[in-house]
C-alpha cells in the first residue's frame, strides 16, 4: 500500500513539474489579491494592518480553490479513475495521496508566500509566525475539502462558480479559527486555542474526507 501511495505522490509531482507555469499561478493570484486590497484602500491605510488576517486567509483560500478544480478531472477523462478503482488499493488512500501532492505543490508555496504579503500589509513578525502556523494547519484542511467538492463535480464539463459555492460554507470554521488566531496574536492575546481547534478540524478532515471523496468518485463512475 505504501508503494502505491508513493507512486501516486511521485506521479502528481512529476505532472506538476511538467506544467511549471500552472504551479506559479496560485502564487501570482495570491499576490494580486493582496495588492488589490491595498489599492482599494488609501495608501498605507492603518485598517489594512487590522484587516490583514482576513485578507491573507481568504486570499490563500481562493488561490488554492481556483487550482483545485482540475484535481480529478484529468483522471476521469482519460480513464485512469477506472484503473484506480480496479486496483487492490483502497481508493481513499490514493485520493489522500493526490491531495497531499496538491498541498505540496499549491498549499505549501502559498503558506510560504503569506509572510511576505503580511509584511507588505504591515503585520508584525510575531503575528506573521501565527499566520504561518494557522495556514500550515488550515491549508491542508481546505485542500482536502476542496478535493471532496471537486470529486463531487468531476463529471461536469464546466463547474463555474459551483465549486467555491460548495466549498466555502464547509471551510468557514477553518476561516473563523485561522483568521481568529492571527487576530488574537495581533491583540496580544494567546492564540493557542483557535490553533488547536484548527488542528482538530484538520484531523477530522484527514480521517473523513478521503473516504467521502472516494465515494464521490465512485458515484461519478456510475
Amino acid at each position, binding site marked *: 500500500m505504501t508503494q502505491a501511495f508513493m*507512486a501516486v505522490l511521485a*506521479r502528481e509531482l512529476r505532472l506538476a513539474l511538467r506544467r511549471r507555469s500552472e504551479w506559479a499561478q496560485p502564487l501570482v493570484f495570491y499576490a494580486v489579491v493582496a495588492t488589490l486590497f491595498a489599492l482599494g484602500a488609501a495608501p498605507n491605510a492603518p485598517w489594512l494592518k487590522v484587516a490583514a488576517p482576513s485578507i491573507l486567509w481568504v486570499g490563500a483560500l481562493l488561490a488554492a480553490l481556483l487550482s483545485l478544480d482540475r484535481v480529478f478531472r484529468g483522471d476521469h*477523462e*482519460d480513464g*485512469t479513475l477506472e484503473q484506480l478503482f*480496479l*486496483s487492490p488499493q483502497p481508493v481513499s488512500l490514493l485520493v489522500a495521496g493526490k491531495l497531499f501532492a496538491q498541498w505540496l505543490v499549491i498549499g505549501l508555496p502559498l503558506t510560504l508566500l503569506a509572510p511576505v504579503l503580511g509584511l507588505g500589509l504591515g503585520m508584525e513578525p510575531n503575528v506573521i509566525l501565527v499566520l504561518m502556523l494557522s495556514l500550515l494547519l488550515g491549508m491542508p484542511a481546505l485542500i482536502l475539502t476542496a478535493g471532496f467538492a471537486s470529486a463531487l463535480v468531476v463529471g461536469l464539463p464546466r463547474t463555474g462558480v459551483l465549486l467555491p459555492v460548495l466549498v466555502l460554507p464547509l471551510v468557514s470554521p477553518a476561516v473563523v479559527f485561522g483568521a481568529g488566531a492571527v487576530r488574537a496574536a495581533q491583540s496580544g492575546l494567546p492564540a493557542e486555542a483557535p490553533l488547536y481547534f484548527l488542528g482538530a478540524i484538520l484531523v477530522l478532515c484527514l480521517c473523513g474526507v478521503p473516504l467521502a471523496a472516494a465515494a464521490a468518485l465512485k458515484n461519478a*463512475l*456510475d
Partner: protein
Amino acid sequence: MTAILSFQNLAIARGDHVLLRGLSGSVSGGEILHIRGGNGVGKTSLLEVLSGLRSPEQGAVTRRLETDACHWIGHRNALNPALTPFENLRFWCALHDLPADNVRGALREFELQRVADQACRQLSAGQKRRCALARLAVAQRPLWFLDEPLSALDEGGVRHWLGLLQAHQQRGGAAIVTSHQPLPGSLTGLRSWELS
C-alpha cells in the same frame, strides 16, 4: 470447466433508464465472450457491471477470483497525456504492487520501444491504444475485460493482440470483449452475444 465468472438475472440501468434486463450466463477458462450490439445499447455498461466497477440494478455477478486478478482495458486508454508510455505503465504496476520489470518488454512486444519515452500526447491514436493493450503483456491475469479493444488499431496491432489472446486462452484464461464489429481471425472458444 468451472466458470470463472457467472451472472444471474442482471438488469443494467444508466441513471433511471433501464437498458438491459434478465441477462444470465457464465464464462469459463479458455472462453471468449464477445458482446456485440449497436451504439448505446449498453455493452460498456454491461462490461462495467461484470467487472465490478458498477453495481447492477438487479441480479448478481459472481467472480471466482479476487478483483486483482482481472485486466480492464476500457475504451479510454487510461494514459495520462503528459507522461510517457513507460511512466504510465510503471504507475499501473505500482498500483497493483507489481515490479516494473516487464514494462519495457511489453512495450517492445507492441512495437512501441521508439516512443516509449515520449509524452503520450505526441502518440497517435493507434499507438495509444497499443500502449493500453500492452498492459495485457505486463502481467498475466486469468480474466480480461476489453471494451472495444480494436478501435484505432492497425493490422500489426491487431495481430499482436490476437497473439496475446491466443496465448492467454491456452493458459486457461478467459476474456469478455465488446465491440460492434466481428472479431478477426479464427478464434477458438468464441461465443457471441448480440444485445438489442
